[in-house]
């Protein structure tokens, strides 16, 4: 594992994570389908996970990896709730396009 970090360099991991994170952000910004937006959020979370794992290795410290498990559990719970909300919305308006949700404004 040391080798991997040494060979590639921690910066690269960070850049990759940032790129992934940005992909997530842009996805959320430009897609209007709720499922895809959820997935983009997952990408953001996972980019952070990757960063944690990378740093964990870099620092020779297990805490980072433990944290990732927390994150995954939380992400799962979050998505579960999110999907539940989505289902109720679909039941009510028959669509999962978030642009249709414009009742609350002003």
């Amino acid at each position, binding site marked *: 594992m040391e080798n991997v970090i040494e060979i590639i360099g921690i910066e690269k991991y960070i850049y990759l994570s940032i790129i992934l994170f940005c992909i997530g952000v842009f996805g959320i910004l430009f897609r209007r389908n709720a499922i895809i937006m959820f997935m983009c959020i997952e990408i953001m*979370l996972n980019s*952070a996970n990757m960063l944690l794992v990378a740093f964990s290795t870099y620092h020779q410290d297990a805490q980072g990896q433990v944290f990732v498990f*927390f994150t995954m559990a939380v992400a799962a719970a979050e998505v579960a709730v999110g999907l539940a909300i989505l289902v109720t919305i679909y039941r009510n308006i028959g669509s999962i396009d978030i642009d249709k949700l414009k009742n609350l404004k002003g």
Partner: protein
Amino acid sequence: MNTLIAIGVLAVLVLIAEIINLRKMVIPMTVIGLLGILGYTVCNISVVEAYYNNMFVSTRFSNAFSSLFIALTIFIVALSNDFYKNEFTKIADYVSLKLFLLMGAICMVSFGNMAMFFLGLEILSITLYILCGADRKNIKSNESAMKYFLLGSFASGIVLFGIALIYGATGSFDIAQISNIAVSTSLPVWYALGATMIIIGMLFKVAAVPFHFWAPDVYQGAPTLTTTIMSTLVKVTAIATLYKISVNLLHQMPESYMNALIFITIITLTVGNIMAIRQDNMKRLLAYSGISHAGFMMMALTALGSASPNLFYYATAYSFAGMAAFTVLMAVCKNNEDELISSFDGLGKRNPLMAIVLSIALLSMGGIPVFAGFFGKFFLFSQAIQNGYITLVIFGVINSFISIYYYLKVIIRMFANYEETNREKLAVPALYSIIGTIAAAIIIVVGLFPSLLLNLFN
């Protein structure tokens, strides 16, 4: 820690009560349990201790805020009885969710480790997403849940990324260690980036401009009781956490960080107030006023380290005023589809008690002495001036009287002599009256004796 465990146990007991069909017991049991826990926490307020490798650290700050959260939860749980009458079968779910939410909140102010912070944040957020969407068949509730969920998890992602960066820079999740390392060594730019992202995440939670757009929509759409939670408990939690994080992460940062925060504070104050002026929905109005109050509370960030009593005071004043206001809102609008301000017309005649409670709440929020809100503002202004932020205070003052404008508008409507409408008396469940009165009484008592709260920190 005992507090947290006890709340967890209480939540499980609530679920068990559901299983053994003791639904009627749920609320009394929870209230009594929480009262006990509150007593315990207040008695042990001076206990400073760390648990589980500094995962959880109880300090005066965290204990004080925890007590406040518990007290607020007691009110909220007590209100649940009437609020969920139509869905009484699910009462245990709602109550236990609130208790979990409380746990999340306590974690957020008591964390010693980033993991705990993140967990607390997520527990709080996820339970809120559920509570927002609790009114499943109402499209507004759905929309509010969806908006909150999307923006909230987006913010969570940012926070998480920030945590990861900080971890990368310092090699630790322990907040004390991070703080020490930040002071002793010079850290790579990721550290600053990470700290910024965490703070942005928390600014989202407190609904600071420009991360505030969700707040009015979500407040409006969510069931009113959930809105109450959001505008009191969650807002206070978020601001306390923001403060705690800032204390630990920001003290070695260059001037520009403070400037940015001050700027955000000012626009939060101003935007919140200006937007509130033209609202005709009471919940939206309170949401926008909540935004500006967040701005006021952010003034505490000008005195990192010494502002905790003042912040706590303001938070208490604000949250009880919010509690009183929402209690009245629930009582008045319980049968209405919308929470239009016009439904308060003539409340002074229809139900004087509620009208007085709401007036006290709003006047306190507006900063009229002798209500607590005034002292809160005073302490924060005082702090800011002491630290030389006079511009900030001037903006605070200008915003104070802008805010009085829309609070008074509501008050006027209540006491207006709308003879032509001449509606019948408004019957209000006794519980609402009691809770509203207690909240109003707290506002006044705390206002007359500010030392009660300030001394908690000595």
